[in-house]
């Protein structure tokens, strides 16, 4: 287990290093001079001012030196200040990280809540109408782009039924009930896309387990098909499903980009998008790093859990 932990840590560190290189490079090597953006078009036209600013920001130093300084600052919790507001980037991030995480966790919850039953039905009712319908629902959920699902949800639940707010965010401490009702639609939009993956895995794993000897034994002992599936096959079939949910959990982050824009959810992705439009590069860098760190931490924790549950995983990539 210790060797496995060490290998996973090394992998996470490598990913983090490469991710930060990508972030650094994407800002420094792309067209569009950050200093000119920083100063604004008017003052940015004066070469002397630009040069002075470049020196003040340390942008005239060699690139590798800048990278080291930048990384060092990140470890000190210093991500620079926003060009637009002048506020430290870190403060904004600390407020927004929990909001995005909340969205992901709620989305995961919806995905499992809908996906597992759907997969069970399509495995159990294979070849019958109910099974086919469940299969089609899973493929549809898998293929539907998040914003299409999201817009449909808004049209049905807030335009027609007038049950839930179409967008917006209220802090939990201000109004817990309103906070949760604002969360339902965006979380469902993210969850439905992931539901298809969960349903596919559940179906594949359950139809495999249903053919195993221990399930046949349970049936031979006189258990009904229903009970044999629920008590014996399903718990075993869910182990790989949990694994895949864990591995892909980080991918839900990608879904938040669209959902946060669609539902005005003030999380990390919407910060990245709005900073991109104003080319507020310290905010862009900081947000991107935060997103990648979250992604890497989730992946690492999931690897760890899997290694704890299943000893075979520990030896796999030796």
């Amino acid at each position, binding site marked *: 287990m210790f060797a496995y932990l060490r290998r996973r840590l090394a992998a996470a560190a490598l990913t983090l290093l490469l*991710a930060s290189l990508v972030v650094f490079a994407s800002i420094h090597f792309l*067209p569009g001079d950050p200093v000119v953006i920083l100063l604004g078009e008017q003052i940015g036209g004066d070469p002397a001012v630009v040069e002075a600013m470049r020196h003040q920001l340390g942008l005239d130093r060699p690139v590798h030196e800048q990278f080291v300084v930048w990384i060092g600052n990140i470890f000190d919790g210093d991500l620079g200040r926003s060009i637009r507001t002048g506020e430290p980037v870190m403060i904004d991030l600390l407020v927004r990280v929990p909001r995005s995480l909340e969205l992901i966790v709620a989305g995961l919850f919806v995905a499992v809540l809908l996906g597992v039953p759907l997969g069970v039905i399509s495995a159990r009712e294979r070849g019958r109408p109910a099974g086919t319908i469940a*299969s089609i629902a899973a493929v549809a959920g898998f293929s*539907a782009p998040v914003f299409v699902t999201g817009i449909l949800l808004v049209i049905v639940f807030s335009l027609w039924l007038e049950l839930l707010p179409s967008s917006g965010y209220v802090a939990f401490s201000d109004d817990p009930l309103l906070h949760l009702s604002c969360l339902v639609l965006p979380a469902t939009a993210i969850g439905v896309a992931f539901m298809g993956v969960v349903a*596919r895995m559940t179906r594949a794993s359950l139809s495999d387990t249903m053919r195993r000897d221990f399930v046949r034994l349970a049936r031979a002992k006189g258990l009904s098909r229903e009970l044999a599936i629920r008590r014996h096959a399903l718990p075993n079939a869910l182990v790989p499903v949990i694994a895949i949910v864990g591995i892909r959990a980080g991918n839900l982050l990608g879904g938040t980009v669209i959902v946060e824009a669609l539902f005005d959810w003030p999380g990390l992705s919407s910060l990245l998008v709005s900073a991109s439009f104003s080319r507020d590069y310290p905010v862009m860098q900081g947000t991107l790093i935060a*997103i990648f760190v979250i992604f890497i931490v989730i992946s690492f924790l999931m690897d760890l859990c899997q290694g704890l549950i299943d000893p075979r995983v520990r030896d796999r990539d030796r």
Partner: protein
Amino acid sequence: MARAPSIVASRRLSSTAVTFSGTILVVMLLAALLADLIGPHDPLSIDPNRILESPTRTFWLGTDELGRDLLSRLMHGARVSLAVAISAVAIAAVVGVPLGITLAYVGGRVETLAMRVVDVFVSLPEIFIAIVVLAFAGGGMTPLIATIGLLYFPQFARVSHSMARSILVRDHVLASRSLGAGPLWIVRKEVVINMYSVIAVQASFTLSFAMLTEAGLSFLGLGVPAPTPSWGQMIGTLKDYIYINAWPVVLPSIALFATVLAVNVLGDCLQDRLNPELRR
């Protein structure tokens, strides 16, 4: 990318699904190719008196927020969505496949290190990188295609690398080698020829990812700039008007959904057909 076994398992269902998906794709391709010829109106002509209308005699599918014909815009949008996705997949394959094969051939430390890097890029959520790159590179077709293409080439590198590795140790390669075949000959005649099916399956999956990424970026306003229509951008604009008329936003949503679904179903069936050992 690892996929769960195909969900369209029964033969009868799968042949219906293939026919259906194939029809959708052909219709979309025709709409894209013939948009100028058969589109009933100019997709850019504005009519301030007829905004956000539901379907009428003149405007068969209604109008958008500036009174432009939705049917024509949908057809021109199909052109942008398909062109961007197909070109991006082509770039990804052209960059990724040779890279994967070369690494498999070279082997050693270089291979291990490079594949680690490729794995990292496959795992990172790509849309965030795309947002930052496009913010600096600016919108427009070319940056969009290049960015999406470069985002997906690691997937092709990974697939072709593992495939090439398994082919290179086969007996027929050993036989050619002992007969004095050079590396280029082996790659061309032994490796690439045995990889087509796997690359085709990868391309079909990547095509649906690329379409979704393009639509997502255009939805956010980072893709093809207005007034050129693309489905994602139409959805992004029209969603603000659902309280006036919810109909217009539904159309591009359905078009995008149907196309992605069709590509996914066809990709699934392609995989089943080309890899018989996966069939159950």
